[in-house]
């Protein structure tokens, strides 16, 4: 974007941007409404509206009828959880790509997902579910991040390349630990649950689970949003950033902590849902450009709509629940391949 844009052009851009954001918000709302209406148990559209209104008027009461419970206790928390996770994963990816000045990184590179996966798999191995599963996957996701921090800090300073390499090392370590858990798991009991959980799913979404996910994800999203100006500076060279009064090391770690909070929580409530953090920020960049002040909220909105839509497919296409990780990869990988080709074609041209 040109910095010498004249006033009319500038206001033209912001009007366009408001239009784009308006469309994205409308898209998200439409997707969520569609998702609440869609499901294996048939509930008519007027009935859904009635149930939603009743539910909003009498919050906290458990209804007696099956269709009310399905809409209010199954679909609504699931749609909200999917939207929130989608926003968190996409924002995590966008922030990470900014910090590393590299469009090809995602939350997996810091080893957080693998750490969280190990925690969750361990909980399932010992027959725990619910809050223990959540707690263990979050704690081990955090442990992975702390390990990366300790490994990457050399002589009191942290270089980006050492963070990426440490992330790979820690990720590989935790991936191996996940394999060990699968190796010793009972094929009759815990193993199928672990394998399914690792593929990612919102099938266990409840209001309680949503309540557990909200603090971590909201805090992470809020932190990244507060840092949206800093992300623009972090995208510069370290020396340039320092000359502008930024301590890139400290700022980066705040971003990492926020991302680990979001990713760890997301893995805890839904298993590993890949590709969102990689693909969605690219789509957002096409729509609103590189500026993180616009890119962060755009990624959140697109990520929320995208994951809600994918989850709706996962739970409605067949009587069986299709694992989310499978769908996000089936759609994400080809899209990412196309983006990659375009990226390098433009890079070659420049």
């Amino acid at each position, binding site marked *: 974007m040109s910095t010498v844009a004249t006033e009319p052009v500038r206001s033209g851009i912001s009007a366009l941007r408001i239009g784009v954001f308006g469309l994205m918000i409308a898209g998200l709302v439409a997707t969520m409404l569609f998702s609440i209406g869609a*499901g*294996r*148990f*048939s509930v008519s559209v007027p009935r859904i509206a009635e149930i939603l209104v009743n539910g909003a008027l009498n919050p906290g009461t*458990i209804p007696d009828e*099956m269709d009310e*419970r*399905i809409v209010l*206790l*199954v*679909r609504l928390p699931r749609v909200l959880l999917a939207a929130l996770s989608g926003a968190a994963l996409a924002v995590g990816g966008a922030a990470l790509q900014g910090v590393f000045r590299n469009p090809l990184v995602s939350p997996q590179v810091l080893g957080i997902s693998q750490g969280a996966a190990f925690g969750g798999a361990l909980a*399932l191995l010992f*027959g725990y*579910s619910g809050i223990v*599963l959540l707690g263990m996957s979050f704690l081990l996701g955090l442990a992975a991040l702390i390990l990366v921090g300790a490994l990457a800090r050399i002589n009191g300073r942290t270089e980006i390349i050492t963070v990426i390499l440490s992330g790979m090392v820690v990720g590989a370590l935790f991936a191996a630990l996940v394999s060990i858990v699968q*190796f*010793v*798991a*009972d*094929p*009759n*009991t815990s*193993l*199928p*649950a672990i394998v*399914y*959980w690792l593929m990612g*799913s919102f*099938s*266990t979404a409840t209001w309680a689970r949503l309540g557990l996910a909200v603090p971590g994800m909201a805090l992470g999203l809020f932190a990244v949003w507060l840092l949206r100006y800093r992300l623009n500076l972090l995208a510069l060279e370290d020396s340039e950033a320092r000359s502008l009064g930024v301590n890139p090391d400290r700022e980066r770690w705040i971003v990492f902590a926020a991302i680990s909070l979001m990713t760890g929580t997301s893995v805890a409530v839904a298993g590993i849902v890949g590709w969102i953090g990689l693909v969605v920020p690219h789509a957002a960049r096409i729509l609103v450009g590189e500026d993180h002040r616009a890119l962060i909220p755009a990624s959140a909105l697109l990520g929320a709509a995208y994951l809600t839509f994918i989850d709706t497919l996962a*739970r409605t296409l*067949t*009587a*069986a*629940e299709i*694992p989310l990780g499978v769908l996000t990869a089936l759609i994400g990988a080809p899209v990412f391949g196309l983006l990659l080709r375009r990226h390098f074609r433009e890079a070659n041209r420049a």
Partner: protein
Amino acid sequence: MLPRRLYTSLAISVAAMGFAATASADPITIVDQADRTVTLQKPADRIASIPIPMASTIIAMDGGTSKLVGMNPTAKSAIVEGVLGRIFPEAKDIPSDITAPNFIPNIEELAATHPDLVIQWADYGADLVDPISNAGLNVALISYGTEEKTRYYHNMVATALGKPERAALINGWRDTVANEMAAKAKDIPADKKPKVLYLGRALENLTASGNKGNYNAWYIDLVGGVNASSDVQGNGTTISPEQIAEWNPDVILLNSFEAKLGIDRIYNDPILSLTKAAKEHKVYKMPLGGYRWDPPSQESPLTWMWLANLLHPDVFAYDLRGEMKKAYKTLYNYDLTDADIDGILWMDMQGAETAYAQFKAK
């Protein structure tokens, strides 16, 4: 379905064994469920079993534990913690490090048990088999999941042990009970057949199975029920509570694999507690006997009787406790106590469910 000639060749070897019961020097030939011919110079005194369900089957076919020299750690924990552990306390000393739970053989530990015969899965590929035969051990492969396959490997193992008459006895019992049930169930009108949902997993995620090649679906049909999840493709597929609401089953069966799973799981769930099954208190956890009652095992006819009595108490009126006592005497030479039976049937947990009172001790 297995080729007919397998049955024929097995029948011949079984017949040959019948004549040679005392002349133990004669070699035994069995054709396993991968169509491989295995020859033993004499009846096997030492059998190691890598598949999980097979360990208790070997005990049943021999009538004791002395010939089981190695088993899967998961099979061992099931035996030690269940009623077989009380019947055969010595089972806790049988090695279980011949394989990890994943069925990959640990050849050195396996060889150290000096087995005359190793049992392995037929359907998991050559990588799990070749190392055993390369070590010079005899290995016979079994295939799982249907009634026919179960009878076949019962016969195979009993023949290898030099006791084909045990398989004839136990399979004959299966045959009699199954035929008797089919005859009675045939007169049950379609609208009187309850929709039965079997949940293979229910703690973290819910799984159900379609009809194709599924043993639970097979016996639900046998005893005059309808598999509620028949439109699912495949076995052990994850489904949503919403899908269960849509099926609205008349009866819900919980698996016996998940130790922490109780019928409260259904009654505490906002969706599942509104199904017809929950409202009519027809939620039952599958019993856990010498082996789990959900998959095929040497105790399967008891599973069928239990479910038949629950679905159609007026059509089938088996004296389940009496049948269990008889069966355990035959299978394990053990006199079941009333407390044993109450434990196997989870009387404490589900004695108050609909139709369950018929299983109370008289």
